[in-house]
């Protein structure tokens, strides 16, 4: 099995297998890159409805071809039928919402399910036709790369590459359209035409994917790579390229897997590969990933808690007699530590060489810790003064406000605030670099 899989993946499985793998990959490239625009334009579920709406067209094309004595396996004929009925489906979504009573979400669900039902009924008509090839039609629902002819794969690949080329040609205007439709209209872009072009490309790619991925899951290969790329990058060009590559990889690997394990429906395998990539990115993406997010949150809250504790220790030193030392528990209470912070922070602060624990359980700041604590306290008071003076905040509020600000604003903004104070309210700044704590008075109530 693994040898066969390797053959399939390394394009060593004979001419037909190579062509099929390349055709699928080309489709994945087109679906992934186009998917970015479909996603950003908010058309993901229209694509799904259109994909389901291809079934009656494909079945009808089969029936008509059989009745006229043509070749029922002819992919171009079947795909033409699918494209025609998908276009009708898209028009039906618009018609259903026109009355204003049904929203487009309901209209899409209606078109999707009813046209699929019609397709299923037509498939049961196909079963009674006295020709062969009925079994192949099921491949259009869930996708079947195995048994695809080289001609079919070439057709799919050609369609997909054509779509990619058109997409590249229209990249700039489409990007503007997806970014801001009003703006695009204002700068004179033909937005209706562009929307129509996007819809046409979407239909073309959908139809191209029917044979390989199947109509049920073709939308997956449009939205999943695009969503993955969106997690990884903020730039549209990179996103489109990345989504195309991810789509191509997923289609190639999925088609290879299902070619070696014929039981696996190709479409589902391809989508699962794409999904696995998505989940990996969702968890591990450097900026938007879940882990990165959690790590930054934890880091920020840890640094904030440490700074508060150091400040509390410094202020305790200012007010109390020397020699009396606060314990970790007291510092933690003053700084609002949570349970895990209580467990972690004393160790971390000692490791960082900022403080030592004395025999009596008191906390003594090292020279480095003292310097940092003094700096933090000064910055905090600077902000408190500034917010009171410039913002007119009452002292209690200013204290909380300063707590928020001091951890996130860069030092140059702090210097700006200091300069402002020096200009407007020099009395608040002490003679030397030590700032006195601002006075606490009761809050005024209306």
């Amino acid at each position, binding site marked *: 099995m693994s040898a066969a899989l390797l053959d399939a993946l390394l394009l060593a499985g004979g001419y037909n297998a190579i062509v099929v793998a390349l055709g699928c990959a080309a489709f994945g490239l087109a679906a992934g890159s186009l998917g970015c625009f479909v996603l950003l334009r908010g058309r993901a579920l229209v694509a799904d409805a259109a994909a389901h709406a291809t079934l009656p067209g494909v079945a009808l094309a089969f029936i008509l071809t059989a009745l006229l004595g043509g070749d029922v396996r002819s992919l171009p004929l079947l795909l033409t039928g699918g494209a025609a009925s998908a276009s009708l489906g898209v028009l039906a979504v618009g018609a259903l919402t026109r009355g204003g009573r049904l929203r487009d979400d309901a209209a899409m669900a209606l078109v999707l399910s009813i046209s699929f039902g019609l397709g299923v009924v037509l498939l049961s008509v196909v079963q009674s036709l006295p020709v062969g090839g009925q079994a192949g039609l099921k491949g259009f629902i869930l996708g079947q790369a195995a048994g695809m002819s080289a001609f079919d794969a070439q057709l799919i690949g050609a369609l997909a590459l054509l779509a990619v080329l058109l997409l590249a040609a229209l990249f700039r205007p489409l990007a503007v359209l997806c970014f801001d439709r009003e703006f695009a209209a204002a700068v004179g872009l033909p937005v209706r035409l562009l929307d129509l072009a996007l819809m046409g490309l979407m239909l073309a790619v959908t139809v191209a994917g029917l044979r390989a991925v199947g109509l049920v899951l073709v939308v997956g290969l449009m939205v999943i790579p695009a969503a993955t790329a969106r997690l990884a990058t903020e730039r549209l060009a990179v996103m489109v390229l990345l989504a195309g590559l991810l789509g191509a990889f997923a289609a190639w690997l999925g088609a290879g897997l299902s070619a070696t394990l014929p039981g696996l429906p190709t479409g*589902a395998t391809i989508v699962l590969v794409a999904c696995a990539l998505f989940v990996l990115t969702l968890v591990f993406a450097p900026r938007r990933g879940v882990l990165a997010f959690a790590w930054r949150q934890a880091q920020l809250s840890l640094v904030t808690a440490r700074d508060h504790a150091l400040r509390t220790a410094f202020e305790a030193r200012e007010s109390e007699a020397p020699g009396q030392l606060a314990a970790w528990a007291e510092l933690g209470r003053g700084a609002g530590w949570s349970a895990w912070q209580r467990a972690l922070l004393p160790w971390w602060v000692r490791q960082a060489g900022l403080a030592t624990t004395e025999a009596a359980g008191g906390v003594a700041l090292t020279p480095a810790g003292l310097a940092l604590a003094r700096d933090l306290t000064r910055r905090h008071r600077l902000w408190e003064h500034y917010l009171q003076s410039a913002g007119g905040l009452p002292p209690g509020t200013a204290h909380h406000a300063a707590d928020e600000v001091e951890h996130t604003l860069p030092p140059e903004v702090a210097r700006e605030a200091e300069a402002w104070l020096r200009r407007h309210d020099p009395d608040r700044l002490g003679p030397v670099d030590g700032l006195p704590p601002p006075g606490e008075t009761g809050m005024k109530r209306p």
Partner: protein
Amino acid sequence: MTEFLQLDLAPMLAATLACLACGLLGNLLLLTRQSLLGDAISHAVLPGIVAGFWVSGTRAAAPMVAGAMAAAVGATLLIALVRSRARLEPGAAMGVVFSGFFALGLVLIEVSGAHAVDLDVDCVLYGQLEALIWPAATGPGSLLDPVALAEFPAEAKTLALVLLLILGLLALLWKELRLAAFDPDFARSIGFAPRALSLLVLVMVSVACVAAFWAVGSILVIAALVAPAAIARLLTDAYARQFLLSGAAALAMGAGGYWAAALAPRVLGLDHGLNAAGMMAVTAGLLLVGACLLGRRGPAGRAQRRVAIPVRAPAAAE
């Protein structure tokens, strides 16, 4: 008569009950503009159904319902996570999650070997109404015979139970569900938990999807969820009538679709039956077109309202 009891009664009942159960719930989805959530759930429950089937090895409802509920709730949470992290619009986030879940379900069917028993891809796509037969029926007397009734297909019984449950919930929470659907913020402000209610609706939709699975599969169930409510919405502006009309539409869709599938081949001279689940969706489509034409906002309704406008004018204070 006996042939009808043996071959047609159970599938027709199952089709009708499935449409009623889903159609009534669909009102709550449609009125809160969440029809696509029905779409997402119907796809997302598939791995839950397959896993429940795999674990228990039977069509017994409980494990599959449990699996489906877990899958539905998991999918909903994932949709929220994907929305916030990838900053996607809800439709796209749904597309990502439900196609992933559906693909997982399809692969699970192959991997688990469930297809060898009963559950195969065809059932997912078209339902399996024709498998619901009642061979124990010997005549009209069987309808009262407990021994014969015990043999009645369990799928239909489950559907009846689910429909009763839904009717009970609708009766019990009639005003609460209306409040939460119309104005969730206000509902929350007076202490009626709209989030709990919408979670309840979500869970009920997933239960209905599982129960209807054997009858219509997991794609055509979307038609049962959305179409009756949409048909009723085109015809009325009254809340209670919305539910009554959707019930009627569901009835027509289920029973009418089943009979259309059974009778059409004879009329058209085909030697092969038509797919009943598909025909139900097609019937719903025809009803929808009719409602569009007849409805208040359709051509007929527009003519009617033109007459009604002078009555409105004095009441308008602006």
